């Protein structure tokens, strides 16, 4: 019995770890009558047009003020859910079952010329495997309830060169978007890596303010000032900041054409002591003994015909007070992703991808060293306006640790429904 429970916990934890909320917003397609591929290479991955549309505050590039607002269109609500069958195998056993992996409720639109919003809510999805704690205990849900995004975008404060996002948003230093990742269960591992005592989550949407813009010649920037804990409210009085700079060579945005390189840096503080902290009426804590950390990295996106090679890597350095292995040394790690995508058949109905993730923790933390090899095939059942269904097959093989290496395999066959 104990072994069974352990197995259930493992698979539930694995699915929770693997699953991620992702975004595609058919409300826009409904507004315009476009097919998904207007903005997506194949949803959810944005193409160049979609990237410019997003950057322009969900307004068609160059058309700010010349299109309908949310008050003149149908209610701009969209839904995305993924459901299917998973087969997970590790050294302890094999587990299989049907699942709802995620559900996103999205609303987005233009409120006024150059003022738009995005709201994404992910409701809690119960995980039956959690029932080992007793019916309805609520532990280990497949998805936690959260307001993933709630932000206002003020676009073109200086035409193309200055846009502001305020609220909770996907920060622009994620040049490879984890929210629009084609993989459903295999995340960007380095984004999710939390080593030592620093709870900073690189993949999290952040609360704060971000300025971004573009210049002729393909140069783009982003500057952010955020809570840094990816949560509401903040756990310390120090704010984090980041900067990102990218350059696209050739036409396009580097999403589906052109070649893009980028560098980014994130500098933040996290508290190491809450023993004497107090909490404000709105929930902010003044965590004590704030220590700093940073992330520095680069990325590239290369396109050839309908092939797209994306890669990114960053180095993380956390103050030695975060180091639970050797407190005399900063906690240093690095990792990255390389992903090769291909789109084929008419209107990109078929998508195939290979991805490699690696995480290299500091000496002494080798049990957290990770390599993940993944592949997927997606077939889109239609090229309809504002609704689509993808048949999605995904496989990941991970090796974790060095000496006592563990391996796991996850195969998933699911339907990705976006409406």
């Amino acid at each position, binding site marked *: 019995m104990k072994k069974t429970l352990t197995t259930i916990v493992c698979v539930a934890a694995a699915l929770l770890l693997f699953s991620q909320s992702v975004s595609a917003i058919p409300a826009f397609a409904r*507004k*315009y*009558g*476009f*097919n*998904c*591929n*207007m903005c997506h290479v194949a949803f959810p991955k944005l*193409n*160049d*047009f979609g990237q*410019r549309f997003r950057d*322009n505050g969900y307004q*068609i*590039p*160059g*058309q700010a*003020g*010349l*299109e*309908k607002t949310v008050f*003149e269109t149908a209610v701009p609500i969209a839904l995305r859910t993924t459901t299917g069958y998973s087969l997970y195998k590790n050294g302890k056993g094999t587990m299989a079952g049907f699942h709802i992996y995620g559900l996103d409720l999205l609303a987005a639109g233009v409120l006024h010329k*150059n003022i738009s919003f995005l709201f994404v809510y992910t409701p809690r999805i119960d995980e039956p495997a959690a029932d080992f704690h007793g019916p309805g205990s609520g532990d280990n849900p497949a998805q936690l309830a959260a307001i993933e995004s709630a932000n206002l975008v*003020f676009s*073109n*404060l*200086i035409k193309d060169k*200055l846009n*502001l996002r305020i609220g909770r948003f996907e920060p622009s230093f994620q040049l490879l978007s984890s929210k629009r990742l084609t993989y459903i269960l295999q995340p960007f591992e380095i984004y999710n890596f939390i080593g030592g005592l620093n709870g900073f989550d690189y993949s999290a949407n952040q609360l*704060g*303010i971000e*300025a971004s813009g573009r210049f*002729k010649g393909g140069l783009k920037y982003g500057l952010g*000032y955020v809570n840094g804990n990816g949560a509401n409210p903040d756990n310390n*009085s*120090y*704010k984090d900041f980041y900067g990102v700079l990218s350059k696209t060579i050739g*036409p*396009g*945005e580097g999403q*589906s*054409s*052109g070649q893009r390189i980028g560098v980014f840096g994130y500098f933040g503080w996290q508290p190491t002591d809450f023993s004497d902290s107090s909490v404000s009426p709105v929930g902010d804590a003044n965590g004590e003994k704030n220590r700093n950390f940073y992330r520095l990295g680069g990325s590239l996106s290369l*396109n050839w*015909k*309908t092939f797209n090679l994306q890669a990114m890597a960053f180095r993380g350095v956390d103050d030695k007070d975060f180091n639970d292995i050797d407190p005399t040394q900063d906690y240093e790690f690095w990792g990255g992703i390389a992903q090769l995508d291909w*789109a*084929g058949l*008419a*209107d*990109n109905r078929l998508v195939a991808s290979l991805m490699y993730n690696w995480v290299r923790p500091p000496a002494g933390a080798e049990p957290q060293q990770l390599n993940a090899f993944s592949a997927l095939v997606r077939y889109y059942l239609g*090229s309809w*306006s504002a609704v689509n269904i993808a048949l999605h097959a995904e496989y990941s093989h991970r090796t974790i640790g060095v000496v006592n290496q563990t391996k796991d395999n996850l195969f998933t066959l699911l339907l990705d429904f976006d409406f």
Partner: protein
Amino acid sequence: MNNRTWWRILPVCLALAGLGALRLSAEDKAPPITQVNCQQLGPQRLGPLPPVVIPPSNPQSSAKIHLGKMLYFDPRLSSDRTISCATCHDPAMGWSDAGPTSKGIRGQMGGRRAPPVSNAAFSPLQFWDGRSPSLEDQAKGPIQNPVEMGNTHEAMIRTVADIPGYVKLFKDVFGVGPITVQQVADAIAAFERTVVTTDSRFDRYMRGDHQTLTKLEKQGLEIFNGKGHCTACHWGPYFSDGRFHNLGVPPKDPKNPDQGRYAVTKNPEDMGAFKTPTVRDAALRPPYLHDGSEKTLESLIEFYDRGGGKDPNLDPLMVPLGLSRTEKAALVAFIRALTSLNPEVAAVKPIPAGKLPK
């Protein structure tokens, strides 16, 4: 001031800067397309054309349409009596001409392609640069353009007023009084509002005849409205946003490039931008683009697939498309399916000189 205080003040500074920038934005110039009412804002769904809206200032009548048709095909409106509206807007050439640009009096070549008259009633602005707000206003332009009909309005009116057949027709339509340029323009515009193509195979498909498009054409429709990004500009029943875009078409004379919409608005963002033409009946009127530089639909799609040309003012909508050979063929097939089957429009023939008013 210590570091912590600075970090607390920074957001306030950013917010103030944002508000200041917002204020600047609010003082921006109005968008150049003032004639488009708010109901027409933003992409419309593809579909059959609605009925033409007739301006109250120029109501239709059979007699006026007949008069307009006579004037449209009458070369006597030009200074040397060789060029009519139909010379460059020929029904047999999809209401445009063989191009690449149009030939006016004394063999002079214009710098731009003749925009099609068919369905022009749906365009909010006329001419490639949108300098004219109505068909009536547009109709006056070519008559006195030195490269096109090379006449003056006064001389043209004298010519028309000297033709008894026209005098009678004008009297029947506009009543007693001197013939005016406005009457000539009203009559031509009334005729042009009848040149509407509502019955392509695409229209039949949209009305429910799902067998009328081939598999390749249906695929082309999907690409037109998706991966091809065509509907980002060629939207709605008219297959045009009526707006102005710089596609990066290389100027024929780099030292003296065609300024396009900029010549009207003097807005630097409009430099080299031209009005989106309708795609309806496009297969009937090669070559393409404002200067006729793309000879075939196939080469036109290759141009778009490359993301257009190079221009410092290239429209942000222009991005490489990554279309496959099949997808390009599908697009061409779909555009051909937009060719009208309207017999009343297809049957319009040039009026021979002997049948024009005498």
